[in-house]
């Protein structure tokens, strides 16, 4: 058997990688479920039921998908321009911090203004967090993979300090957590009585907006050109440095929104476990979506469903919910492999 490159992949072939990767992921998960003593079909059934089996489950899945849509978009935007933003985690926390700073009583505004202010501020600080590494990259050629990744740890320690110090809730009985947001700073539920907040709708709007930017605007055209061939882009007069900086602002802003949405829509206050790695999981989401903004929504729902479903599955079947982490990790690995393989045709001699 031989591999041969394909010059012009068909549409079917381009959609193939995610399908292949997800299929392979389920095979691995089935094996692991069997090792853990469960029946794989029962386990998958329980995961499915846990994720979509009831109104509550569905809303839980949508809520869990919300931050992943934001971080997935942040990564997709950056990666498309070949800006390797691994720091969505820090940008998310930055958005959460500013939301808490503005939304716990320091300001008193009517709810719409308050929410708009918090959201925009979260985008701004998220953007600024990524602007630093982007400037280091364009000015000095510093590798942004290193700077954005390390900034995650630095920023998390900074948040830890804030929660032990300036932002610590005086009524929190000593726990490292912030005060609660005032009601005007809380994102309301989309439908009264259902546990789904407006953050989800905002995430969908963001996905459509990014898609429109990518395909319809000069900025999207510039970002794609710079990502595909920076040398040709520069020769044609596209301001490459400015485009990279704009990309960084957009990417960081989207990740900042994730923090705003989580604090304002779901948690109501800031703790150190606000994000169980949404910034990193966003990379998986973006890759599964092949960096397509609308695909990000689908991929985020898939990933969220696995996590939510695995949680309830583990209670019912006794198979550890770590299965979800493994599925996620293998989905990413298989995806990278599948992208590679679908660029080639397998030939039998």
């Amino acid at each position, binding site marked *: 058997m*031989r591999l*041969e490159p394909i*010059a*012009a992949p*068909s549409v079917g072939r381009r959609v193939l990688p995610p399908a292949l990767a997800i299929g392979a992921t389920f095979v691995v998960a089935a094996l692991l479920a069997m090792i853990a003593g469960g029946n794989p079909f029962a386990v998958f059934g329980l995961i499915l039921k846990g994720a979509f089996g009831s109104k509550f489950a569905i809303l839980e899945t949508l809520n869990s998908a919300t931050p992943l849509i934001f971080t997935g978009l942040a990564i997709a935007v950056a990666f498309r321009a070949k800006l390797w933003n691994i720091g969505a985690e820090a940008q998310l926390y930055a958005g959460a911090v500013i939301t808490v700073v503005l939304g716990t009583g320091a300001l008193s505004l009517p709810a719409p203004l308050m929410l708009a202010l918090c959201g925009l501020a979260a985008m701004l600080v998220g953007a600024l967090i990524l602007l630093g590494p982007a400037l280091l990259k364009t000015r000095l050629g510093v590798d942004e993979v290193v700077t954005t990744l390390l900034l995650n740890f630095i920023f998390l320690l900074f948040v830890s300090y804030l929660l032990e110090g300036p932002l610590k809730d005086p009524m929190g009985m000593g726990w490292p957590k912030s005060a609660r947001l005032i009601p005007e700073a809380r994102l309301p539920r989309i439908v009264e009585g259902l546990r789904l907040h407006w953050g989800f709708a905002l995430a969908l709007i963001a996905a459509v907006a990014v898609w429109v930017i990518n395909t*319809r*605007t*000069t*900025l*999207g*055209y510039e970002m*794609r*050109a710079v990502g*595909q*061939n920076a*040398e*040709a*882009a*520069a*020769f*044609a*007069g*596209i*301001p490459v440095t400015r485009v990279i900086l704009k990309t960084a602002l957009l990417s960081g802003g989207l990740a900042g929104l994730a923090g705003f949405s989580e604090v304002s829509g779901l948690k109501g206050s800031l703790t150190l476990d606000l994000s169980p790695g949404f910034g990193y999981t966003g990379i998986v989401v973006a890759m599964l979506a092949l960096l397509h903004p609308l695909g990000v929504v689908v991929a985020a729902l898939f990933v969220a469903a696995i996590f939510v479903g695995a949680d309830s599955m583990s209670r019912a079947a006794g198979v550890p919910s770590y299965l979800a982490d493994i599925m996620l990790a293998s989905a990413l690995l298989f995806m990278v492999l599948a992208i590679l393989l679908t660029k080639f045709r397998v*030939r039998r*001699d």
Partner: protein
Amino acid sequence: MTDTEKAQVVLRLDGITKRFGPVTANEDVSFALNRGEVIALLGENGAGKTTLMNILFGQYTADEGSVELFSQPLPAGNPRAALDAGVGMVHQHFTLAGNLTVWENIVLGVDALSAASLRPANAKARIRQLSERFHLKVDPDAKVGRLTVGERQRVEILKALYRNAKILILDEPTAVLTPQEADALFATLREAIASGLSVIFISHKLHEVMAISDRVLVLRHGRLVAERATQDTNGEELAALMVGAEVSAPSIAPASPGAPLLSMRDVTTPGAGSAPGLARVSLDLRAGQITGLAGVSGNGQAALSDLISGLISPSSGTLELHGASPQGWSPRSAIANGVARIPEDRHKTGTIADFDLTENAILETYATRFSKRGWLDWVGARAFAQKLIEGYDIRCPGPDIRIRLLSGGNMQKLILGRVLEGAPDIILANQPVRGLDIGAVNYVHEQLAKARDRGAAVLLISEDLDEIMRLSDVIHVISEGRLSPEFARGTMRPEDLGRWMAGEGFEKGMTDAA
């Protein structure tokens, strides 16, 4: 066929057909190569020459047909098998690691890491021996990244010879060489043939084909349309066979030059890596005149091209366009000042391979012509692409085709259309016909001549002296970043220019200027 003839056949292709989706790259191609023979494979771009050789070399697998090497069937799609059987290929785009030395590149992948032949002393001795025997002068310890294009090609050939290649495939080997280097290459090839090697020589330079080959195979649209013994044919017949119609080179009418549109005075630019910058260069590009820049590759052409393109600014001296110094010199201001730029490398700098034709067509003008408050006007852009396709004879399925699927000639026509559409009055054409077939070459030259006739100032940079002498109204020679005086058309013989290209005459010229 007698037994002795049969024994001489080293390679036989039988009924090779290869399709890429709807495109048929090769259709039912059969031929045989004899020991000690040079076959020239002639054909326009997109005729299927490179695909055919990639099948032979195992990089592609044929849909139909078979390859036989030394009377053994060659397993399809396995470059290793072709290498082991003694096929060496020198690609048009070299496959060398720039950060390794010459000898490291040559031994790379040949033997197991523990093999005795891999010891530096042994390997280098063998390389020196080969390079002496085949007149391939190159220092085994030099870093490949610092070598000239001609030297790199020698390394590629040495690599094949080091692996005991018995069949050498050369894909457009002279496209990147100076006349002198091409002559040296031919000497090497003659030596190789004399020692029993067989050569497949892919080219569309007819005089080379006539000079070096024993037999010529002509490919057109993927089919083998003709086979001639070289002694029984001539350049005109081959050209006609290649394009399927009689072709004639455009005749260039005398110029009527006007005022200088671009002037450089004592411009110096920093060098980049091993390539020199410009050294106090003064140059006038006049309206209605083609200025030819001759010179050996890597003597400052890149710096001059980058300067006029807007990629770099003079470190000293002045650059004036239309009599005024441009503010904030950049690619954008170059375009805004009416400079059309045809870059040297259409794959890397001229186009974005995975963008479609429309997206590539608007690369320079999207912000000015196709943007409304940040929104891209795709309808207008597509119409523009369609106009270029029709106006510049770009052969393609439509404006949505990805540019990487076009042949070099059609890619170049797109670039031409893109930059000429705005009726620019200064045109920089850096190696505009490198690697193109005769049809496309004539087309590009006609367009440049047409632009000149409507009053544009054209700077033609080329390493092909024939091209320079045929097209240029005035000629400068560049050597180590220095510019020769201006020579009018017909006042210099190739040998005279060759002396300037070798760096003679400058010292005196410089003293006179000082």
